[in-house]
């Protein structure tokens, strides 16, 4: 599903992301691990189709409408938790929207927040809302930029559980630390500063 070879992204003449080799099959989960500034987010943006100015090979055999990307600090549209989750469902013309929205809010443990305005949410609740909104559309490729940041232990456990059970989607997420350890079957991609190379390694 994803084939990356000698990928690099440069801004103002400086390389900000470099991945030498990475591949991922349908239904697999991969975790890109690296320190701040290593280019993890940029790599994810390339996979999402948000960053198109790059060198090297990056083949993603999924239509752009079937990919969804969640920012490290997600943007929630004005309105409520419910209206945010409905946004993507309406854009995709999904049938039984109410049922889908309800289901994903429950899975992320925020069903009781459905009618709450987004300006009344904590950082962790905002993050879970954005994740529910992304998962609800049923995308084939889900790209999550540091989904565990600003999340408490309970939230981390909930998100981890959702990631483990989302078998129908291919997921790539980034993390600066080892908080993904509970995703035992995840493939690991160590991303280091652009001057050095990055090589994918299996981690089972």
């Amino acid at each position, binding site marked *: 599903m994803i084939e990356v070879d000698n990928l690099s992204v440069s801004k103002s003449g400086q390389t900000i992301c470099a991945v030498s080799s990475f591949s991922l099959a349908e239904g697999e989960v991969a975790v890109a691990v690296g320190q701040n500034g290593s280019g993890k987010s940029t790599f994810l943006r390339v996979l999402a189709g948000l960053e198109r100015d790059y060198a090297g090979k990056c083949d993603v055999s999924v239509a752009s409408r079937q990919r969804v990307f969640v920012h490290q600090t997600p*943007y929630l549209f004005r309105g409520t938790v419910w209206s945010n989750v409905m946004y*993507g469902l309406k854009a*995709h013309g999904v049938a039984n929207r109410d049922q889908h929205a309800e289901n994903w809010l429950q899975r992320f443990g925020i069903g009781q927040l459905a009618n709450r305005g987004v300006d009344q949410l904590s950082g962790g609740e905002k993050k879970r809302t954005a994740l529910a909104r*992304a998962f609800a559309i049923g995308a084939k490729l889900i790209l999550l930029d540091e989904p565990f940041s600003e999340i408490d232990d309970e939230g981390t456990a909930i998100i981890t559980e959702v990631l483990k059970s989302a078998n129908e989607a291919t997921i790539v997420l980034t993390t600066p630390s080892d908080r993904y350890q509970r995703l035992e079957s995840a493939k690991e991609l160590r991303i280091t500063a652009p001057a050095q190379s990055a090589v994918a390694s299996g981690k089972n």
Partner: protein
Amino acid sequence: MNYIFDGLREAGRLILTLDADVMDAAARSLWVSSAAVILAMLLGIPLGVLLARVAFPGRRAVIVVSRAAMAVPTVFVGVVCYAMFNRSGPLGPLEILLTPWAIVIGEFLLALPIIISLTHNAVASLDARVGETAWTLGAGRLRRWLTYLSEARSGVALATLTAFARCVTELGVAMIVGGNLPDRTRTLATAAALENSKGEFARGLAMGILLLCISLGVTCVIARVGRERQTS
């Protein structure tokens, strides 16, 4: 000094007794300015979003021109409209000179650059994640544009109110292409100017006070919207 206080007292009486001439001019001012602003919104808001979100050759120049046009003198717009609408002008056959519609078109030209520029500003200053989030959630172009407007609605409301304030208080266009005809094209601004020049200070003052009330009302709404925008 007495004539000023007498004028103020008489102005108060004209307003409180809903004097027919004053109310007629006030009603015309409101509908003409509203029509001009609504027409300017229909064209200006999509253009503002286009300038903010779509790159095309000459975009920078269009932005600069629309900003510069915000300060164009109303008399200049009035003279240009007169040249277009008078009998020997290119739009003479429409026969709209000295009708309220001539004022609507003139004020539309005053409102348009304000709405384009301020809408552009509001949408261009949105967080980059707005467009990216909408796109990645599968929103097509129309839904994305509606999302930009929804997220920038305080700024767009500010643009609309600012344009309305400019139109309702302007004198140049209404005087030159409207002709200040009683019961036909007289607005509060032209009536105030006329009554004052006739020495009817109280009537002129009454018109001026009503105009001031409308401007103050709009300014208060602008200030409130501006505060909401800062806190959102």
